[in-house]
């Protein structure tokens, strides 16, 4: 038999589990990644990284001068 504090914790756990399931069901109904989103994600990190690599490459050429 459940004591009072245990009963409260079981109820709380059930509520949280239900909330999680509902949320997961909601997200599963949404659409997936578009090509634009994918390109934007890569450009967001790719542009600064490429700029940095080019800067370093230019500086590295001093070794061969």
């Amino acid at each position: 038999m459940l004591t009072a504090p245990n009963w409260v914790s079981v109820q709380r756990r059930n509520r949280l589990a239900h909330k999680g399931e509902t949320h997961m069901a909601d997200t599963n109904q949404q659409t997936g990644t578009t090509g634009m989103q994918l390109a934007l994600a890569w450009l967001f990190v790719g542009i600064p990284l490429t700029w940095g690599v080019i800067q370093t490459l230019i500086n590295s050429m001093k070794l061969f001068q």
Partner: protein
Amino acid sequence: MSFLDRSYSIAKPGFNRWVVPPAALCVHLCIGQAYAFSVFNLPMTKLLGITQPAPGDWSIPELGWIFSIAIFVLGFSAAIFGRWVEEGGPRRAMFTAALCWGIGFLISAFGVYIHNIWVVYFGYGFIGGIGLGIGYISPVSTLIKWFPDRPGMATGMAIMGFGGAAFIASPLSVWLMGLFSTSTHIGVAETFIVLGVVYFVFMMVGAFIVRLPAPGWKPEGYVAPAQASKLITTSDVYVYDALKTPQFWCIWIVLCINVTAGIGVIGQASAMAQEMFPGKITAVAAAGFVGLMSLFNMAGRFFWASTSDYIGRKNTYFCFMVLGFLMYCTVPYSGSIGSVVGFVLAFLVIISMYGGGFATVPAYLRDMFGTRYVGAIHGLLITAWSMAGIFGPVLVNYIRQYNIDHGVPKAQAYNVTMYIMAGLFVIGFIANALIKAVDARYHMKADNNADRAQLGVGAAAKPAGA
């Protein structure tokens, strides 16, 4: 803050897994700034004197501690928070890392403003160091779960960002300091504030776009091996049980040696090149050599980690140990015959393997201990980096000084160190050769695995012996 919960970052159907590497790069491109912290050293020695150091200004050794504390805290925060990162999910971990990293910069800016080095140690070194540790391991297991077919390549891409971050941070910091500096003021504090805010925003973008695969998700066309191969397990090992296996400590030794060999020469590369080839390599050319080394450090992370998907992790580390031994034996010979090309090539190979070692090790751990706790186990392994951060510079700098003090010409002062490094690779070779599949008694029980797979979390995990 429930959007940070693990359950809220489960990917919906149709989510493209190639969005996850940019999310990981958002974090690693920011925290890798640590490699470029030295650009602040000189300006921070003149905060009071402006044109030259004045009494009361900070010295270079005092400032050197900022980076050392950050790297030390990185290793230990990764070890301490590894399990929390694994169980809380990548979004919560990335958010925490962004918060620590950003606030670390803001506290340091305050420390610079009031000119108190202890505040900077606390801000960048301690708080920022925690952000470094959590941020470094946060995307690793997520990437491994999204790319079970190419785990090396996936983690290689993220950890490549850590190596490449200095390329962005270094010129950006110099430009910002120029922008905020006047004839009576050096704009270090303002630069820290801008960097703190920019890095926080950049890392939060990563935290928002990162997703976990739904339980049971597999890439299209991928068939998971039904049985474990010789060195790739299909079971999981509980994080603290991994510490009881000889495999963990063998990989720890191999990583520590690989990092020791690289980290020692990174800091001393410019001086070493000029001293070994006086008149042939000028200060400007040496700066170019350092730049080329950092490019190979970054490229090696992607190249070696991707290669390991084809040749296997153990074979990749065999390559590191054998090539490392040969390259370190070659350096004194190149110096003796005055071959700049031989010297440069040897160090470029060594430094590519230094980066490659970092990038390949998460996949090695996944092969040995499974995917469930790979992030947490990786966190524990990072302590090898902290130790190597002490061994490497000590081996290079102190032995060089000892030789010079005993009359050895500067051009030959590094030879003993090179042979010691080559000897370390022999130990690493043996440690790598000893790595076999983890004994089944360390594997987590099947019923626990099934429970947690259903929940999509590792919180309910019970170790094999529990």
